[in-house]
Structure formats: C-alpha cells, structure tokens
C-alpha cells in the first residue's frame, strides 16, 4: 500500500490535514493583509498632516 493511501484511511486523514492547512493559511493571509492595510492607512494619515 502506498504512502498516500494511509493504510486505508486516506479519506479521513487527508481532509483533516487539508482543512487544517487551509484554515491556518487563511488566518495567516488575513492577518497579514489587515496589518498591511493598517500600516498603509496610518502612513497616509501621517503624510496628510504637516
């Protein structure tokens, strides 16, 4: 049996890893995006002020 078949439990193991990877990746992207937006907004406001 190959590695990818996971001893016959591939139908449960890969979705578990897939959902976890997806969830964590979305959290990472979301967090970084919000941070970049906040930085840009503050910079724009500071530049507007003398």
């Amino acid at each position, binding site marked *: 049996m190959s*590695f990818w078949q996971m*001893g016959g439990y591939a139908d*449960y*193991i890969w979705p578990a*890893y897939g959902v976890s990877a997806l969830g964590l990746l979305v*959290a*990472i992207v979301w*967090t970084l995006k*919000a941070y970049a937006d906040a930085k840009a907004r503050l910079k724009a406001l500071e530049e*507007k002020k003398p």
Partner: protein
Amino acid sequence: MNILYRYANPREFMRLSGALLPFTAAAAVLAILAGLVMGFSVPPDYQQGMTVTIMFIHVPAAIVAEGTYALIAVLSLFSLVWRHPLSDVAARAAAPLGALFTALGLVTGSLWGRPMWGTYWVWDARLTSFLLLLFLYLGYMALWNAIEDEIRAARACAILALIGAVNLPIIVYSVEWWNTLHQGESIISGKLAPVFLWPLLVMMAGYGLLFLTLWMIRIRTEILNRRSRTLMLGGA
C-alpha cells in the same frame, strides 16, 4: 506588576513584538514542518492504524483553542480590575484565532471519530463542552461588534469571557467526570508511546508559536488602527 506595566504599553509592545516576530514566525514554520515529517513517519498504531496521524493536528488545535480562552479570561480580569487598555486589545485580537483553532479541533476530531467510533459526532461531555467553547468565542466576538462604545464593549466582553471560563475546567476534566466516548488524557500520564509523543509535542510547539505570531501581529494591527483613529479625530 512593574514588568507588566513596562511592557504592556503600546509603544513598548510595538518595539518588543517587532523584535520577536521574525523569530517566532521562523520557529513556527520550522516546528510545523518538522512535526509533519515526524508525524508522517510514525508506524501505524495497533488500534488506530494511520488515523493516529490525525492526533498530531487535532490535539494541538484543541490545546491552543483552550489555552487561548484561558488567556482571554486572564486578560479580561486585568482589564476589569486594573483597566489596562492594552489587555482589551490583546484579548480581542486573540478571539478569532481561538475560534479558528476550536473549529479545527472539532473538524479534525470528527474526521477521526468517523473511522474509529463509527460516527462523526456524539453528544458526550467532551465534545459538547468543546462545541460550547466555539459558541463562547463567537458570542464574545459578536458582543465586541454589537456595542459601539469601546470602553463599554470591553467591559461587557470581559465579563462574558470570565463567565465562560467556567467551561474550561469542564472541558479538561469532562473525560474524568463523566463516561465519555472521547478517550482520557494520555500525555501527562505518560500513556502515550514516545514514537507518537514526539511528533505531537513538536506540532504543539508549532501551533503555539503560530498562534503567538499571529496574535502579536493582530495586536500591532489594532494599535496602528487606534493611532489612525486618533489622528482622524484630531484632524476633524
């Protein structure tokens, strides 16, 4: 207490977290990659077969989910008793991450339960109290968004978080207090074989570091947003 006040002001937090972030981020990535490699090289468990690999992502997600709630409860206490504004920011920043890890704990547990128990879900004490944790997170986040005045929102949320903390010992001890389908604790009691324990510990470190990294970035985001709001108000 002195240490707390020294590092818990926004300016110091920005400096300290800025210095720490590259290290926690790199350590999180390394630990998770190492955990994956170690996790997928274990032999099949004599009862669970290869579904034992689901444990390496289920248990870390569940522990971070519970730990995050405990963190929010402690921060809420600080917020209520000492009125420290950064503790509100930190608690609020942690909540969506806690909710995500709770959801991941539920989904991965369910995907393990189906082949091992024959069902995706059962209303036993552990699963039910853990589902309640997800609802507590969602309620906490909804309450933050429902009250416009930030100081009032912070107080209401802190009280909710402290009441909800009653659920934490229930989750932890549910497997002892009641007859649960969910198995009992096997890490601290030393029942877990080292070949499975090591990948689990490494993965737990990875999940914990990832949480820490994202949490710090989220706190920084909120600090910057507050500065923006102050500038906008000042310029109006």
